[in-house]
């Protein structure tokens, strides 16, 4: 961590995701790209097991290492607000990305919020599905113990105006188990209208599950976040829409904003909502090319 970069600014991005969460690769790639383009030094940090209490320590650590700015998620306001406030107070500029809400970001003293409030995204998706005539759904949650992601299901249920109840299953992360649990659920609840998956980890096996039980293209299927197989499935008509919260922007913009703020004192006046953007079969070219890498 030398301070040898062209202009010398150093920014640390702290996420709440465990090491292996593939969605965050886009973030890392965008972060690296922004660092390169702006000529600043960037670092990516995350708690290896996804434990948010460990994440608080990482924010404290980042603060101690004296960066110019910290970009962090606000996965659990109670846990993270203290360390983030301490960072702000000790002179580090903070931008909240991804999780949390604009109000919470303001409350901890962050410069701004860039992201897609999870609940709101779920709600928007639910409202859209309700318009398409959906009345019951299955939410495939591959990280049951992560409360942030579960907000999406809650929002979706509220958007539909139904009770979440038993609609959310704990699918585990093993693809074969996810596939078979989805099959089991659909078998036991054949009148399910829609499926909501919360990311590529649960979407990919669900696509296979639907292909194997013949419901592909038949059942209303929406997902969060993008990946190779999701894009292909959207093209094939298996998936209705994918909610793209554009992780690229969530990492890229804060670096750009912070750099410009530190160099020229300019700062956008508003928060930036990077999502929800609904990706459908139309206009998939670029999405397809960069899915999982920059999209």
């Amino acid at each position, binding site marked *: 961590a030398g301070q040898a970069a062209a202009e010398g600014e150093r920014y640390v991005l702290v996420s709440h995701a465990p090491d292996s969460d*593939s969605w965050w690769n886009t973030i890392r790639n965008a972060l690296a790209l922004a660092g390169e383009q702006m000529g600043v030094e960037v670092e990516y940090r995350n708690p290896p097991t996804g434990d948010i209490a460990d994440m608080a320590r990482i924010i404290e650590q980042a603060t101690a290492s004296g960066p110019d700015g910290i970009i962090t998620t606000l996965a659990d306001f109670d846990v993270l607000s203290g360390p983030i406030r301490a960072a702000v107070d000790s002179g580090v500029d903070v931008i909240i990305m991804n999780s949390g809400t604009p109000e919470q970001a303001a409350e901890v003293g962050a410069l701004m919020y860039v992201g897609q409030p999870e609940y709101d995204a779920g709600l928007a998706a639910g409202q859209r599905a309700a318009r398409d005539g959906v009345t019951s759904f299955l939410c495939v949650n591959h990280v049951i113990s992560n409360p942030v992601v579960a907000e999406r299901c809650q929002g979706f249920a509220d958007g539909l105006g139904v009770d979440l109840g038993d609609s959310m*299953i704990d699918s585990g992360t093993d693809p074969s188990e996810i596939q078979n649990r989805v099959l089991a659920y659909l*078998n036991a609840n054949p009148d399910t209208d829609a499926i909501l998956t919360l990311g590529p*980890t649960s979407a990919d096996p669900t696509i296979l599950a639907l292909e194997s039980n013949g419901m592909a293209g038949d059942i209303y299927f929406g997902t969060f976040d993008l990946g190779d197989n999701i894009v292909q499935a959207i093209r094939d008509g298996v998936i209705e829409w994918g909610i793209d919260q554009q992780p690229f922007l969530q990492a890229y913009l804060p670096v750009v904003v912070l750099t410009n703020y530190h160099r020229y004192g300019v700062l956008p006046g508003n928060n930036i909502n990077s999502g929800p953007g609904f990706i459908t079969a139309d206009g998939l070219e670029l999405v397809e090319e960069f899915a999982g890498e920059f999209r």
Partner: protein
Amino acid sequence: MSDTATGDERVKEMSGFRKALIRPELGGIVGTVAVFTFFLLFAADSGMFNAQGIMNWSTVSAQFMIIAVGACMLMIAGEFDLSVGSMIGFAGMSIAIFSVTLGWPVWMAILTTFALCISIGALNGYIVIKTGLPSFIVTLAALFILRGFTIFFPQTIERRTIIGGIDDAAEGDWLAPIFGGEIGQPIFVWLADLGLIDVFERGNRAGEPVIDGIPMLIVWAIALVIFGHIVLTRTRFGNWIFAAGGDAQAARYVGVPVNRVKILMFMFTAFCATVFATCQVMEFGSAGADRGVLKEFEAIIAVVIGGALLTGGYGSVVGAALGALIFGVVQQGLFFAGVESSLFRVFLGVILLFAVILNTYIRRIITGER
């Protein structure tokens, strides 16, 4: 001269029936019967026992079986391997990197991965043997190291931790179908024609039977169980496995090559993990850095439910396979029965406890252990 000779007045006789019943697999058999009875009573109308439902829990059980066979034989040989889960992730990622990133033919990627993973298994075994450390520690270290690399390599090379596109690469490959294919399709078409199994009613495959064929995963599971069972009970090497786990020193004294046996079992466990990973990668077409997390525990649990002794020297592959079946059926059955899915872990823990208590009782009767 003998206290235990037939007709000893100091030992009450055991009935012949009871004796015939008492086998290492008994716990597994009882458990399997109990589990099936339970779900037949409470989830019979949920589709759990129609063709699709059966295929569903069979596939999940087959997965567990593949790793349970390896874990079982290793456990009987007196060691265990916590790195199975990480090895699964590592093997899948290795195939993906070789075939997709480096563009090797898929068969070469698969064979290289097998060679690589089996060597890592051998290294685990070698360290355990040479340092005399408990395998818990050595393989715990391997768990962390392998998982670390599984995340590090794709991230550094491909800038992502899920690598897809393996199915495209595998198109036309001669080796890939052995792991990812299906067999017996005509049988199912015929069964569907007879009306014995359902056909799809809607969607783009309407009219086709709901089951394509038997996935190779299941074939592998059955083959490995049979192989493991024969090796263990019918061969010289099997006797050595029991001996190495029962008392390594005693086995060494009478000339059993204990070190070789143990290292080979570590390699076999790695082999099973790699089979698991390869089937998964070939079926799903992608490899992720988080594949296989906690699978080491699931393998150990299946083996222990199946009656093996954690400390080695006792157990049966058939038992482990039944353990895997119980595990798979309970897991999927709870979904069919509509039980709140977070309670699955609670059930798992409870079943584990009951199974080992039952097994301990059976084992004491068989071996006269005190």
